């Protein structure tokens, strides 16, 4: 027994050391850095200037950072509701014995394979364009001129345009997860329920949902992590400077650390320390969501 323990230590040490160097050290350094004014990421420690919670205070006083949090919240909530509802619907249909299941599954998953930049460009130029885009053509064909003239990418609407485009690409991923969850539920339950006279809705309400709790919990955590990292879609929708409707915390952080894309950022506005503070806040946000989800779904572990 003793020998095997020492063997465990021997084998685990390289992995632990690697983990500590590539994960723990950057995390600690980032947290540490968020309490300093650091002009550029590569500045040596000697140039750091201690500001306490100054960076956090600045972020909270910035109307654009608050706006970025609001946008993130809306993406998480409304995007999440939309994606999960559609994904559940699709996965129910696809697991109900419909013909051509693997084709539909592949088709729904396809947007995940395409690069996000290509997808976003496609949406902006070919779907939302109010002169020759897909929606324009579609609504014009139906004679709905007001709907056809809708300005998808104007300042008033571009947040929703971006949300729709992003959510479209995310549905396929959750369809796969939900399908796997549903297929794991033994078919006897459904058969027994059918014999007892339960309709589709009853089956869904009393069998599928309770037995999918674990899958939902994992999915919500994964959705939270992916929305906190929301970056590319915002960048493609406003490549030069973030707009009110497209700014998210990661873009705000990027601009603090690296400056803007075209306009030269006043060098005094660059602050990698404040960028680190954004990173710390986002990590806390994910942890908070994780604990909330665990609180809501606690003690509901079912084995089947």
């Amino acid at each position: 027994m003793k020998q095997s323990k020492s063997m465990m230590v021997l084998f685990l040490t390289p992995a632990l050391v690697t983990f500590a160097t590539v994960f723990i050290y950057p995390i600690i350094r980032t947290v540490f850095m968020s309490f300093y004014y650091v002009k550029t990421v590569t500045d040596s420690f000697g140039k750091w200037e201690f500001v306490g919670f100054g960076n956090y205070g600045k972020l909270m006083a910035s109307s654009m950072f608050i706006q970025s949090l609001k946008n993130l919240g809306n993406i998480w909530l409304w995007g999440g509701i939309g994606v999960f509802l559609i994904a559940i619907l699709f996965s129910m249909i696809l697991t109900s014995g419909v013909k051509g299941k693997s084709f539909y599954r592949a088709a729904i998953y396809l947007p995940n394979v395409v690069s996000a930049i290509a997808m976003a460009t496609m949406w902006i130029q070919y779907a939302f364009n109010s002169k020759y885009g897909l929606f324009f053509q579609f609504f014009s064909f139906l004679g709905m001129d007001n709907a056809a003239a809708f300005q998808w990418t104007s300042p008033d609407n571009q947040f929703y345009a971006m949300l729709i485009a992003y959510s479209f690409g995310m549905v396929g991923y959750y369809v796969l997860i939900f399908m796997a969850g549903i297929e794991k539920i033994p078919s006897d339950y459904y058969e027994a329920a059918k014999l007892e006279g339960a309709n589709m809705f009853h089956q869904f309400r009393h069998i599928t949902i309770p037995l999918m709790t674990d899958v939902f919990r994992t999915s919500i955590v994964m959705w939270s992590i992916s929305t906190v990292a929301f970056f590319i879609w915002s960048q493609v929708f406003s490549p030069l400077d973030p707009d009110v409707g497209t700014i998210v915390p990661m873009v705000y952080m990027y601009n603090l650390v690296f400056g803007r894309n075209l306009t030269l950022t006043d060098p005094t506005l660059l602050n990698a320390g404040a960028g680190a503070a954004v990173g710390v806040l986002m990590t806390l946000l994910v942890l908070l969501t994780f604990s909330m989800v665990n609180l809501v779904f606690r003690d509901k572990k079912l084995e089947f």
Partner: protein
Amino acid sequence: MKKSIGFLLSILMILAVFSTPLSAAGQQDSNPDAKELVYWSMWNETEPQAMVLKDAIKEFEKSNPDVKVTIQWNGREIRKTLQPALDAGTEIDIWDEDLERIVKTWQPYALKLDDYYGQSYPSTNGKSFEDTVMKSLQAHLKTLSTDKGLYAVPYQPYVVSVFYNKDHFDKAGITSTPTNWDEFLAVCSKLKAAGFTPVTIDDAYMDLPLGMHLNRKFGNPDAVEALVKDRSGKLWDDPKVLETAKEFEALAKGGYMSEQVATNKWPAGQQEVATDQVSIYFLNGTWLPNEVMGTTGPDFKWGQFAYPAVPNGAGAGAGTFGAQGFQINKDCAAPDAAFALAAHLTSGKWDQELSANTFGAPMDTSMEWPVQIKESAAIFASLKSFVPWSGGLAADPDAFPIVKAEFTRLLAGQVTAEEFIANIKSNL
């Protein structure tokens, strides 16, 4: 079979024996004065600029056999990767990026070039290098540095101006370009009467007309910066701001703006002009004809004029301009060779090649400007003072997106001049 393998092995052995002295002899032949320059480029290898630079560097190596140039094509990522690399001591002798950015950001890493500007090089035709570089760019370069020194070599200059379709102007009977706001509105009215949509712009450039207009009104970018940084909103009550908003409102009310203006995501607006649907692109850089060349072809009749003077303003003559620039590392082991390379790339033949291949402006004052942007040459020459990109509106990253969004609504006719100001004040 065995014999043939044995034969091959013996040949290999003989080669191995003789190759050692041969390679040693090769080393002896190499030039002890050989200099290596490492160039980190802002271009991607497939861009037209990169193609020209590659050929130019090959020619430089041919005429300077003791210099070997290693190129790393970074693309625009260089903005992020250069400084960490310099801090880490990576050997980089020469790099390029936006002129303003390199001097303001990387001056501490760069070599002061004032002495080199005074000398002549093979590509400068007997003149000193400083005589080939636009005077306005040299003056601008000096204002960017902390000690009024020259810390970069500019190339590919650009100037921001109003772009128009000359065919549309001819068909609408417009014989001269507008120099003030009333004339501009009159031109728009004539274009509209002739059946054209007069003006458009994209989200990417939306801030330029407002920034330039406010600069014309107030006379300097500092006032615009103060305006956008004012959290109390008091400065927005200045009558000049309302006048400005009213003047843009007139464009929207006159039906002169493209209906797509609020929804135009770059390059949708540029394409409106390139595909003959709209006559004027409100403000853009001299790179515009090249960007839409795939749509227009080289024969599209481009014209340009400077942003018009505005009512009760401080006059015209100020404009946004800039360039790309090369910078040389202050620790470069062969600074003379590095500057000779920069001079080779930015004057004479290769400056002209770059201009011709990208339909951009040449840096060398003796060179012709491409026909598509010919009128920009006169605009550049007439500039009296510098207006930063966005005219100073971008000075406050919090207020800037709010101002830009409201200005988009104003141009699209979705809000009135008064609502424009009130909305900005309430959102600041």
